[in-house]
């Protein structure tokens, strides 16, 4: 867990703090159980035997009280964490908007009015970003572990996720964590956090017409085509969110072993593994 952005860093801090807050109530059990097991064993144990001891007001107060106190502390902390880091709340002024559509087994990113991309997410450094999420086909979970936790992208639904990118340029990846069929292991995308200049250059890169993207995106298969396209007309994402079927041809997510798409997926998996062999990844997070 090496976070790149403040949201992921906050999540890690909460994780550690909760672990520590649980120790006062759990350490007595983790230490006490083996200790009692040794001390009160029948043969060789040194403890006093008191077969009818079955109640103590003091112990009850300590147990119920201690458990309740711990609960109050972690509950209070939770309220603060959740309000402070609501994924629906922008992480800064005027966040950049990216509209996301998940599908079998690829991600479409629309930078409204600027560009549309597949499986490639380029973001400027140190910038708050708001993702609007929807999906076609199955439910997906949109997750860029080193930047922020996940939120589901679901067909017919609109959800949101906010994060701030890393302070300096960095490279990481995001993926769908909700199993969705034959090419689930390939259901991921590159995330490049770049300087503002590089980001402007990215927006200027040559693009393919959007119609081509729309046509190819409908197929149930992994993406092997170009990555950058002209942006769709305004309101396209909302239309997809209302009518997810317009971006899918309704193919199955589980394929018979001898289906042609299955062969494509097998090839894509082999390709993917080859790539990852010559470019070993470092620490994932």
């Amino acid at each position, binding site marked *: 867990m090496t976070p790149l952005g403040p949201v992921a860093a906050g999540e890690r801090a*909460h994780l550690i703090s909760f672990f520590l807050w649980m120790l006062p109530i759990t350490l007595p059990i983790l230490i006490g*159980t083996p200790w009692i097991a040794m001390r009160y064993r029948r043969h060789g144990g040194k403890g006093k035997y*008191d077969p009818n*001891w079955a109640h103590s007001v003091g112990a009850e107060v300590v147990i119920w009280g201690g458990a309740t106190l711990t609960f109050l502390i972690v*509950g209070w902390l939770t309220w603060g964490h959740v309000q402070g880091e609501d994924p629906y709340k922008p992480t800064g002024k005027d966040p950049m908007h990216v509209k996301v559509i998940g599908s079998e087994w690829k991600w479409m990113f629309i930078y409204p009015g600027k560009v549309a991309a597949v499986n490639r997410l380029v973001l400027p450094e140190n910038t708050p970003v708001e993702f609007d999420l929807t999906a076609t086909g199955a439910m997906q979970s949109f997750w860029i572990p080193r930047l922020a936790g996940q939120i589901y992208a679901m067909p017919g639904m609109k959800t949101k996720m906010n994060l701030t990118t890393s302070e300096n340029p960095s490279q990481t990846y995001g993926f769908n964590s909700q*199993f969705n069929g034959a090419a689930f292991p390939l259901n991921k995308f590159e995330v490049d956090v770049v300087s503002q200049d590089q980001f402007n250059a990215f927006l200027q890169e040559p693009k393919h017409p959007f119609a081509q993207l729309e046509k190819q995106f409908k197929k149930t298969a992994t993406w092997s085509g170009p990555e950058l396209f002209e942006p769709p007309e305004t309101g396209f994402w909302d239309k997809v969110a209302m009518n997810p079927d317009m971006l899918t041809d309704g193919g*199955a997510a*589980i394929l018979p072993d001898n289906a042609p798409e299955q062969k494509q997926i097998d090839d894509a998996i082999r390709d993917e593994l080859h790539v990852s062999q010559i470019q070993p990844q470092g620490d994932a*997070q």
Partner: protein
Amino acid sequence: MSILGSLDWNDIFIVPFFTEPSLSTGIAAGAGGVVVLGALAVMVLLTVKGWWKPLWSNWITTLDHKKIGVIYIVLALIMLIRGVLEAVVMRAQQVSPAPGFLSVEHHAELFSTHGTIMIFFVAMPFLTGVINVVMPLQIGARDMEFPFMNAVSLWLSIGGAALVMASLVVGHFETGGWTAYPPYTGIKLSPNEGVDYWIWSLGLTSVGSTLSGINFLVTIYKQRAPGMKLFDMSIFAWATLCTAILMIFAMMPLTVASLMLALDRQAGFHFFTATQGGNMMNFANMFWLFGHPEVYILILPAFGVFSEVIPTFSGKKIYGYTSLVWATIAIAVLSFTVWVHHFFTMGQTANLNAIFGIATMTIGVPTGVKVFNWMLTMWRGKLRFSTAMLFSTGFIFTFVIGGITGVMLANPTIDFATHNSLFLVAHFHNMLIPGLLFGMFAAVNFWFPLCFGFRLDEKWGRRSFWLWMIGFYGAFMPLYAIGLMGAPRRMAFFTEPAYFPWLVIAMLGALCVLAGLIAQVIQIWVSVKNRESLMVPAGDPWDGRGIEWSLGCPVPEYDFTTIPAMTSREPWVDAKEAGKRIMDPTEFVDIHLPKPTGMPFLVGLVATLFAFAMIFQMWLIAAVGFVAMWVLVLIRSYDTDWEETITAEELREGYEAHKRLVETTPQIRLDDEFTTKNRGLIMETQV
């Protein structure tokens, strides 16, 4: 429309291997082959030994709650073997060079059947079996309130399990995990019969569990021995009471959600499809409205078992009876208030997430109290580490680790970073292996003599405990680590080199768990072989505390010769302290027990046929099966000659025989508990 519906040659397990030979289809064919050969081997064995008849008359037609309980447990053990083997295959898949030897779909079938089997066909039958055996004996009842319905529940559950086994031989199982979220499981994305297998096997077993819940609840309310107040019941009976209420209310949302999914898939409905106004989040809602109480259905009976085993082997009264009862009730009530924590990531408002997160943490309070109560029961005791006690102590220690990660996951902001990761997988295995399986193993080791009259071998029992314990840590601690590194669950292979060493440790852990399971099979084998020297005919082989130990082992069909007088919470302990070795009889009266009948088996059989026909869309056969099911129930309802009488005289003879046995059994000290000297009725000291 063919009478065989959508069934075709390619659905037969061996055919894909010939049309598309690969390691993956080979393994599928092999697994199907094991099922077919296993079934054949059992049939041959039954024929050669001439066991068909005793099997029918002693077991299949039985309405005795103890035998029904045993059949449930046998079902759970058979399915447990399959579940563990699947886990080992999945672990092997992830350590073999990517993309491994299984296709993504085949791996998906494995994790889906593993989850479905472990929850519905291991955990549920296991705890239902233990409750069946023990609860009536602990409340002084002669049987369940509805013995016939009890057997129907059993055969429906077995039918569900049979369908999951059939999916190895005919067709495919579902691939969307045990939760089967649409729209992935809708007809468009999952067109084959896999999801239908899931729907209908769960349909059978969830109806069975609902009926069991009703049975347990009514039995506790109506059949307690005269004078036994609710607050005189054992903690295990309390756990059963709470579990039964959860079963009745929690199974229904599952039954409804899965039937709605069936309507979506086969009848063109749109409950969960996005385009026609359906809402897939409602499935998640209903599934977890079942799924979260389900977690406590699984865990409360085990809590009850620990509350019986720990005092017995500590030689001490249970600490904090009232506290434990209220904690159990609190857990049962709160379990209905937390289901949203399974989908914090579906984009609810922060307030809603926070409320459900905090509600989840509330459950930690009564659960924590229980753990301390067990510790304080051991405190100032004289602990004897039998197999059952080892599993209980191992549970306390290990369960607490799962409790820590549970509270962490209950914080939505942490959940965003751990949902759908192996961290979550490690967490729920950390709760369910100690919190359910260890409890059930302890129960089997503890109460085994009640059913069979002999103890289980302690040496192999202890070995199995250590293998399970070490195996558990080996298999799941690495998953916590790589889960935090961002490894998602349900992934067929990983390309991340940093995960590899952890996956190897997890693989070794899984093998260790398998070894533990093998040790248990050996334990049963050795015990059956040496049963003569392990016999405890006088009963009470561990200086037990509940009234079930006042009976001889094995317990006769009618359970009690006379219904015991409840003078206190622990009348058997009182009797022993007064120097008695058999409880005083109350009044001998004629009793009526239901006659054995093959009807529940037949009902289960046609119900399974109906479900199988629904899976493969054989509508005609399905209709016949459905009608036949109700006709059988109707025929049974008009049967007036269904009881047999056991006379007061026979009961008195039974009592006298047991008394003679008790008088001739020499008094043995607790130090000889695990030796062949133990013929029952063991006591702390010779007074």
